[in-house]
């Protein structure tokens, strides 16, 4: 319950609440952010017609799916988050790939979370996931998927660090940027992963996809009337 309240406070900070204090916008969100001139507007009306009567009478509920992601603050912060999160992930993946995978495996071994037969393939696979997620976020491709991937990764990293701390393992550095990159203390890595998590959530809720490849592709795919 407390987490939900905190989450709502966070959401209120980044979106414009309406007069009733609800987080919904004047009208339901659409996918590509160019609903005024596209037939998608009709598509988004369809779910509304299927809603139960109580919802139609009382207006839309205060839920995440009805966020006003067209708020200018949200629009700019989503782009900033995309650039930052994408840049961090791409750099982290690139630096890890520039170091031999055995060195990443050595860093992962220090966490003492997985046996070596898992650590070895993970050290080969993880940097590629990071760099591709980072680059896709930077160019704004498949934003929903890669924002979700960012959230999953940062949750994974955070929980690993918390587990290591809880078990009292003395981790001198996190291995976040490979052995060749900047060396972070575990607490610094936790802060970084926390920021990545928040940025991932913001990107996930962004439906405008301003300055992104997704936005351009949506325009290309939308039939001209």
């Amino acid at each position, binding site marked *: 319950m407390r987490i939900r309240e905190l989450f709502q406070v966070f959401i209120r900070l980044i979106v414009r609440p309406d007069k009733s204090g609800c987080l919904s916008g004047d009208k339901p969100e659409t996918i590509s952010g160019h609903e005024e001139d596209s037939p998608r507007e009709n598509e988004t009306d369809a779910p509304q017609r299927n809603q139960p009567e109580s919802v139609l009478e009382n207006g839309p509920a205060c839920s995440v799916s009805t966020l006003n992601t067209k708020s200018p603050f949200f629009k700019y912060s989503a782009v900033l988050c995309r650039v930052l999160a994408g840049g961090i992930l791409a750099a982290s993946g*690139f630096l890890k*790939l*520039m*170091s*031999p995978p*055995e*060195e990443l*495996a*050595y860093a992962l*071994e220090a966490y003492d979370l997985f046996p*070596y037969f898992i650590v070895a393939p993970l050290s080969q696979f993880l940097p590629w996931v990071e*760099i*591709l997620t980072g*680059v*896709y976020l930077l*160019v704004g*491709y*498949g934003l929903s998927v890669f924002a979700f991937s960012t959230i999953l990764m940062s949750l994974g990293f955070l929980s690993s660090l918390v587990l290591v701390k809880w078990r009292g393992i003395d981790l001198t550095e996190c291995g976040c940027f*490979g*052995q*060749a990159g900047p060396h972070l203390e575990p607490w610094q890595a936790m802060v970084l992963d926390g920021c990545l998590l928040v940025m991932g959530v913001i990107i996930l809720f962004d439906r405008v996809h301003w300055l992104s*490849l997704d936005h351009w*592709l949506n325009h*290309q*795919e939308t039939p001209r009337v």
Partner: protein
Amino acid sequence: MIKRLIVGIIIAGAVISIVSICRQTRWFDLSHVPRFRQKGSLSSPVVLAEFSDFQCKSCAQAQGTLKDLLQQYKGKIRLVFRHYPLKTHKWADLAAKAAESAGVQGHFWEYHDLLFSLQSQWSHADDPMLFFVKYAEDMHLDVALFKDTMASEQVQKWIDQDRRDVKIQNVNMTPTFFVNQRRISGKNQLAAHGVRFVALELKE
């Protein structure tokens, strides 16, 4: 949809190509490594290069496993010690020079063992030189020559050459071992894969 997929594949392809180009590494050669830093026959089928730092705890801990491996494959492995004194270790460079000086007098491996076994003693000292000289005296080395060699350009050159190879080979941590061209990072990997890698190399 297909257009979207093609764009995604093009981006992934570009990323993979760039990384692959940047990743290419060259292999070092061992011709310039002084013979006193090599243990075993030159004709041994397996060369085990160890990049190590005398002030690194993991390097000291790996010595037991390394000795067991050498014992198990006696006569089949040539061990080559490469210096990688880390900048974060205050006395690592000096210790490397001391080991080279002992090596010039034909006692590299004895001095090497001593530096690792008494690591806690000298690594926390304000002036480790006192310990280095004392170890040289205990081993009946010529102390004057030992000190002169430590300050010589040749020793510095040998260590610098190893540092260059560290960059060429993209070694970023100690201890790192190479069983011919198979990389092993850290003591745990040496314990887990050392024997298997040597066996594989002998088979090939």
